[in-house]
């Protein structure tokens, strides 16, 4: 137990993944869903960095990937918040259940 290995980190990542998914599945608030997505992305990042750490050769691909993911997550958040604001403008709520115009 005291020797911390790759598996430990991966379990933490799994927790992040599952909570992220749970958040997406249960929140009706658009921003809440966005928060869930952030958790998911973090789970992926933890995985990448952990694998990067626990492999031979001193490479750093995992970190670079994580870096890009963080950047893209920021971009995604910006767009998503923009969408939320637009939805709010049109529907006066961020409840995703009320956004069903495309359902016909």
């Amino acid at each position, binding site marked *: 137990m005291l020797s911390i*290995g790759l598996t430990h980190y991966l379990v933490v990542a799994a927790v992040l993944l599952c909570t992220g998914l749970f958040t997406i599945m249960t929140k009706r608030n658009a921003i809440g869903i966005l928060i869930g997505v952030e958790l998911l992305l973090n789970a992926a990042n933890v995985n990448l960095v952990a694998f990067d750490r626990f492999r031979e050769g001193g490479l750093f691909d995992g970190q670079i990937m994580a870096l890009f993911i963080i950047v893209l*997550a920021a971009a995604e958040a910006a767009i998503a918040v923009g969408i939320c604001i637009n939805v709010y403008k049109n529907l006066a709520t961020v409840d995703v259940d009320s956004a069903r115009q495309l359902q016909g």
Partner: protein
Amino acid sequence: MSLLVLLTASSAFGAPSDATGAAAPGSVLEAVLFYIVAGGVVVSALGVCIAQNIVRMAVWLFTALASVAVMYFLLAANFIGAIQLIVYAGGTLILLVFGVMLTSKSPWIRFEAPKLELVAATVVCVGLFLSLCTLLGRAAWESVDEATAGTSIATIGRALITEYLVPFEMAGVVLMIVMVGAAHMARQEK
């Protein structure tokens, strides 16, 4: 919380021996730090998904992000950790909070999902988690025990402008597009 900050500080800046600044692999200190940080991650992640109103969720998300940043330090990825703090905790989260503020009539408003869905989601997520854990438990990782030395920021920086130049530039372009796009979307309709 303060303990957490303290520990973060000690591991990040009170670097013991190697250039990367992580606790020595395999040491008891590492184990203790890991469990504390991991506990932080888990608690705050659960907090995110249990919290019912959006502001609390944002706060829990902040702690989660911060804990993950600490975890990066533990993993000898200082640069990523720093970026995590700066971009995520500092940027993305602020963005989200702005989003909350701009879109809520009242920040305490609650939309609850149907009970059935809650239950199903719980079952699925717990199931997924358990099966993932089983999978991880069975995996016979090679060379798991020896963690490698960390990477210096300089190496990463050099790699970004050589080997990963194209993705790097692409990321820049994407960010620009996003900036324009977000501004366009959020603009006031005439």
